[in-house]
């Protein structure tokens, strides 16, 4: 036996013995019919493994029933519902503006998006005009949120692949985003910053400078992450060619977001159906080529860059004006008016006790969340509470494609595929 790493045959000098041996292992004999009695039976034996709901690599409380043949995944059955919170039902019991904090806690890494899709739906129903400054502030916060979500995804996914240092770097940058959130909204997570008709407060003094510093710093950080992972042999081996699924099949499942874009389909609601002044900004839609885990990583890296570009443009072109609609029927009057205006006092009282009424009708308002198309369907019966709120959560739809992505691969690749899928169980179970 020649020592590992030494080439003794002299045929190809750049492939080591170890690599050759690794490449010679094929799965075909596992697939083939039983050749000789006992040994073949042992190979054909299936093992069903319960994976979760408490498992560090399932990114939440997802439970998977995985059937294995040796190390090869033959069947996956996801079982969900372990963080079912009854958010949609709770929303029916609350006035429109009190629903916002409840839906924010759904997909807990995309709280501004959850609030946006609900507020957008209600604004469409109630025909509320949103000021341009409010739209720009919303874009800034949503894109910051997208970066934050991708950072948490990158940190935890790299952790699943065995790279712990990525976690420290990503969470360092995440803290910077959360500092910005805290400065403008008062909270780190679940900020309830978006309000029907605009945002709840203007950005404070000094915020623009701090955001500007972040915008100028972040592209360099993304470049560092890229340098750390993209020339890493282990990462490449784990990601390239694993979890492959083409765009046509993904569309059949209804998969959207970075997963679909990684397979080469440039579908992004920010471009396809611009909402909230996204038409004003100049940005690109990063796409992949084949749709393996490597493409999914790359697409999210590039999306962080694009988000930074959007924030920069929104900050530069931030229009002056009100940050919330002047329609007193849906937005609270300013505090100082309460002391002088009887009308303002009445509006305040009506809003705080009953809330505002929304004309009967139904609307579906889709936006592009970090994980794909996030839509909110609201039906109103004319009262101050929604008759039905339904969320189309991208994680839920994307999870359907998971078994097809991971079947036929190794169980270790299944972990990488699940990480690249980026499911948020709070959004799936709601």
């Amino acid at each position, binding site marked *: 036996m020649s020592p590992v790493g030494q080439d003794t045959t002299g045929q190809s000098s750049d492939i080591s013995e170890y690599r050759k041996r690794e490449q010679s292992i094929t799965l075909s004999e596992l697939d083939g019919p039983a050749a000789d009695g006992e040994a073949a039976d042992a190979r054909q034996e299936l093992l069903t493994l319960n994976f979760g*709901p*408490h*498992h*560090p690599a399932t990114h*939440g*409380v997802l439970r998977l029933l995985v059937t294995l043949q040796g190390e090869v995944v033959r069947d996956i059955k996801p079982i969900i*519902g*372990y*963080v*079912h*919170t*009854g*958010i949609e*039902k*709770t929303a029916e*019991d609350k006035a429109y503006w009190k629903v916002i*904090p*409840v839906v924010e*806690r759904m997909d*807990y*890494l995309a709280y501004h998006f959850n609030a946006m899709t609900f507020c957008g739906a209600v604004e469409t129903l109630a025909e509320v005009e949103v000021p341009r400054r409010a739209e720009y502030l919303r874009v800034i916060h949503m894109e910051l949120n997208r970066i934050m979500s991708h950072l*948490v995804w990158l940190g*935890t996914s790299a952790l699943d692949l065995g790279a712990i240092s990525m*976690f*420290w770097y990503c*969470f*360092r940058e*995440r*803290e910077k985003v959360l500092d910005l959130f805290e400065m403008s909204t008062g909270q*780190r*997570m*679940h900020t309830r910053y978006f309000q029907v008709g605009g945002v709840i407060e203007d950005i404070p003094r000094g915020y623009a400078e701090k955001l500007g510093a972040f915008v100028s710093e972040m592209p360099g950080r993304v470049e560092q992450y890229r340098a750390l992972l993209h020339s890493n042999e282990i990462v490449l081996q784990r990601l390239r060619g694993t979890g492959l699924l083409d765009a046509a099949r993904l569309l059949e499942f209804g998969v959207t977001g970075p997963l679909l874009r990684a397979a080469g389909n440039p579908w992004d609601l920010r471009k396809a159906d611009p909402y909230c002044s996204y038409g004003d900004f100049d940005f690109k839609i990063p796409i992949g080529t084949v749709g393996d885990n490597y493409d999914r990583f790359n697409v999210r890296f590039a999306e962080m860059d694009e988000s930074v570009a959007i924030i920069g443009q929104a900050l530069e072109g931030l229009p002056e004006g009100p940050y919330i609609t002047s329609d007193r029927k849906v937005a609270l009057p300013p505090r100082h008016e309460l002391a002088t205006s009887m009308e303002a006092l009445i509006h305040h009282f009506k809003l705080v006790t009953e809330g505002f009424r929304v004309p009967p009708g139904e609307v579906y308002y889709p936006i592009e969340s970090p994980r794909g198309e996030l839509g909110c369907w609201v039906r109103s019966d004319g009262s101050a509470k929604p008759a039905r709120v339904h969320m189309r959560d991208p994680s839920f739809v994307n999870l359907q494609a998971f078994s097809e992505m991971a079947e036929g691969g190794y169980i270790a690749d299944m972990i990488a595929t699940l990480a690249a899928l980026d499911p948020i*169980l*709070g959004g799936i*179970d709601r």
Partner: protein
Amino acid sequence: MKRARAAIKRASVSDRSIGAPGEGLGARVDPERLRVRELGSSQLLRGGELEGPTMPAHLEGADLERHVEERVLTTTLDKAVSWARSNSFFPATFGLACCAIEMMSIVAARTDVARFGYEAFRASPRQADLLILSGRVSIKMAPIVRRIYDQMLEPKWAISMGACCSSMGVFNNYALVPADKFLPVDVHVPGCPPRPEALMHGVLKLRKMVLDDPDMSWRERYGAVGTEEALPGA
């Protein structure tokens, strides 16, 4: 006063190495010398040397009292054990919802929980002694949470992080169950979600609790002795 004492102790440790003078830590220890040292430990306590001019202890009376007081720290074994325990919790890697993200960030760089010795999260409940309930517990999840807690070995503690698992938080509905209904929770951390600093404060409160209340299982702590469902050997 305390600081001076510590300084004296440090000096005395570095003065006498186990091997011969000049030998490093990696040096071979002569078993004969080790035996002499063992026999002479009372000699050392009384202010003498193992060999040399002060070989017979020369301190007597008040001097000896003072010498011993400066060198020896006495405590009960329980206290020493709970001191060690309270400074090295092994939390279970167990996330439920939003709070799990903030729980992850206490390990990250800004609020580095490793400063206090709680950074070693364990994926197996058998290796963990602290369960941080980070997020909302649904009725479907509650039996699993309880099972994970039961799989942990005594002594063990539980922190309920955030409003949801303490009081169902903003969702007061059919789907959730507060942790106190099925789990002996030691510390509740308020917030939705709590900041990492708040969680750290909660863990340090638990540290104080463990220091003050050593070596009790949760049944003893909460008066639940006799509620075991399956008695050993039954």
